[in-house]
């Protein structure tokens, strides 16, 4: 008998992922952003974003690639710094929304009955209140700042995921492979978490990729409403500044922030799709 190497869904999901060039590029982009974010957080890069590097509102040039803002700060530095905010907002929001959404959705879908009723009620209630209202009020309550933004976005965006997961779990729990798991003596937890959940990961993945862009974009709106991040340059505030700058022909803040956003959103989209496909063994090799 020849020896066979271990492998698991995620292992060869990754193997397959690396075969798809678009996915790979996206992955690299996302990782790059993450890296930048981390370095910014650790103060390795752009720690001196607040320093004046030249006169105010200088257009892009050889020494200031992205130009400077009204205070003569390097827009490049601000974009980099903003990356940290954007990524952390996306991450935190997802880290809050996904556990809540998945667990509640899974429980509701799997157990049905009053559990389902309760959870359905919960998310109906939540989703029936206008998102923007929740966002604003929560940020108001928690006081301004990045942390409030995390919570607000997290708490407002678990709903969609919850609904989706619930539906999928309902479908899957009827499948024979789940009953088979029961037949060999598997308990509820095993059925739910080892059997059903792996079969709905793709939804979580896609949702996360949307989650990220939703978070990043909401940060912009919140900044417009003055509820955004403070004392730190964020893409949101940079775009918000444009409101006053564009009329003076100062376009580079807007442009750079927008481009930074576009790139990462695009990467997340493509990566999300690719990851979903690679997580589906059926599409192996396709």
């Amino acid at each position, binding site marked *: 008998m020849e020896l066979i190497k271990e492998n698991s*869904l995620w292992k060869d999901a990754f193997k397959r992922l690396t075969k798809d060039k678009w996915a790979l590029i996206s992955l690299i982009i996302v990782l790059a952003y993450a890296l930048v974010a981390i370095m910014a957080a650790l103060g390795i890069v752009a720690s001196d974003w607040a320093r004046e590097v030249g006169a105010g509102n200088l257009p892009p040039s050889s020494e200031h690639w992205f130009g400077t803002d009204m205070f003569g700060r390097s827009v490049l530095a601000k974009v980099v710094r903003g990356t940290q905010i954007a990524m952390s907002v996306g991450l935190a929001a997802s880290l809050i929304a996904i556990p809540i959404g998945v667990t509640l959705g899974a429980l509701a879908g799997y157990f049905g009955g009053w559990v389902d009723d309760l959870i359905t009620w919960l998310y109906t209630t939540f989703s029936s209140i206008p998102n923007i209202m929740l966002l604003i009020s929560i940020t108001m309550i928690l006081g301004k700042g990045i942390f409030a933004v995390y919570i607000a976005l997290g708490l407002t965006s678990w709903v969609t995921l919850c609904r989706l997961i619930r539906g999928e779990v309902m479908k899957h729990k009827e499948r024979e*492979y789940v*009953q088979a798991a029961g*037949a*060999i003596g*598997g308990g509820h937890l095993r059925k739910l978490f080892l059997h059903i959940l*792996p079969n709905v990961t793709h939804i979580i993945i896609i949702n996360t990729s949307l989650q990220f862009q939703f978070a990043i974009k909401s940060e912009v709106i919140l900044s417009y409403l003055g509820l955004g991040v403070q004392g730190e340059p964020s893409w949101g505030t940079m775009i918000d500044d444009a409101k006053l700058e564009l009329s003076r022909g100062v376009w580079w803040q807007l442009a750079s922030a927008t481009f930074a956003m576009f790139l990462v959103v695009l990467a997340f989209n493509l990566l999300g799709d690719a990851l979903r496909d690679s997580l589906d*063994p059926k599409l192996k090799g396709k």
Partner: protein
Amino acid sequence: MTTPSLLSVRNLVVDFQTGEGITRAVNNVSFDIPAGKTIGIVGESGSGKSVTSLAVMGLLQKPAAIIPQGEILFNGQDLLKFNDSQMRDIRGNQISMIFQEPMTSLNPVFKVGDQIAETIRIHRKISNKEAWDRAVDLMNQVGIPNPAASAHKYPHEMSGGQKQRVMIAMAIACEPKLLIADEPTTALDVTIQKQVLDLLFGLQQKYHMSMLFITHDLGVIGDIADDVVVMYRSNVVEKNNAKEIFYTAKHPYTKGLLACRPKLGANPRRLLTVSDFMDEAGIEKHVSAERVVVFDKESEKEKSSEILLEVKNLVTQFPIKGGFFGRTVDHFKAVNDVSFTLKKGKTLGLVGESGCGKTTLGRSILRLVEPSSGSIIYGGKDITHVYAEELRLLRRKMQIIFQDPYSSLNPRMTISEILTEPLNIHKVGNSKQERLDMAKELFDKVGLKVNQLNRYPHEFSGGQRQRICIARALMLRPEFVVCDESVSALDVSIQAQVLNLLLDLQQEFGLTYIFISHDLSVVNFIADEVGVMNGGKIIEMDKANNIYKNPKEAYTRALLSAIPKGLVKSDLSSLV
């Protein structure tokens, strides 16, 4: 053949562009279909039957499918050279097709009447009204009860058999010259199978259509085909007149196909399989006479008397929801007052048409569905009400092999994960490696290659998947196994292998089976006792042979008569 041929396929080759590279699905296939005649294509799953037919229809998935060579002449014109619009005039008009999967091949959101009428409207200049009437008329012809009303139904409101009839009506709507039927009956159970076959045959006569009939079951073809084309591993291995083939099959694979279908008359110890006639490479083997000796089960199996399982007045019902707040208003008795006893080491067969409660009964016994009343005594112990922990221990002794091998395997788990899971749950074996080894051993025993262990379910053929399910069921070394339609979904050739496997395992581990199937001949082959189920009740129960020789219930007789005979004259000895 003297009659000018309507369709003639000349050295057709079809390749598929896949991630692993190019795979050849059809290799150099040629055959002719004379006007008004029926050609049957037989061959195991994956041999290229559907692809061939799709090629004729010009429905192959572009760009995945490539046709490097060959021509398909229809009335002398090469269809492969036709452009899209030309092809559209042919499709559904001159040539039409009935697909393998009646369940999914109809559009769920349109009335069946409309779906039939649509075909007509595409090709005939007639008003919607006329088209509709024609559709109703067609539904009448294919024998759908009260067509005028049924035409307004949606697919999900019809039974499998009726759906298939709608597909047929759709196919013959424009009185095509050629009708392609791709395994029109595999998905149906015997009784319906029979009706559909008769219907197709009748229609073919009536409209003087030529027909290309695809199946993996020679027995089915015997009744209707004029000529038979046998495909094996994407090649045509044998062509012959239908009568001839049954007497003078030349190619070992064909012989295998003929031999491996269990016959009601005979009770071989094991079934012959294709592999008995040829080895992997396809080289013919000589069949040892010992293998085909007919024997009598009674004398063969040692009389065991110890009762393993006793079921008393078992009732399992499903709530019917309704009322204002979706309360349960009534109950549907899927299993209705069933009682029987089963001796250790024996096999109880359960037959009955779809929906009669076989599966539910099987699952109730294992407490996968909670029985509503009655009692289940296993090994002298009443297990009707034992609780979770105890139940989990019971699972080690009682196992089930599910009806659908595919959907009962988690698509996102590798086979090794699937096989070792039971061991993990019950803490059998102390190391990962040890468990893996146990898995390998059994995997090997069910005749699969160990190096496939970390593939995913979809990467196996139907037969292989079924073996995997069996292996999983046996991982915990159970003493009692419920086999729910374990072979209905398989080709006859593979069916035979699986049946043999089950028998061998029973010999080796002294297993006790409940074997569920709607195919009497299969049950008759494997079971010692047979219970005939109808509407949740066991209406007749007796020794297998008795049931077959003198059935008491009319329903049982109906079941029996439905079994396709092939050419029953042919008997095995003629093969050796």
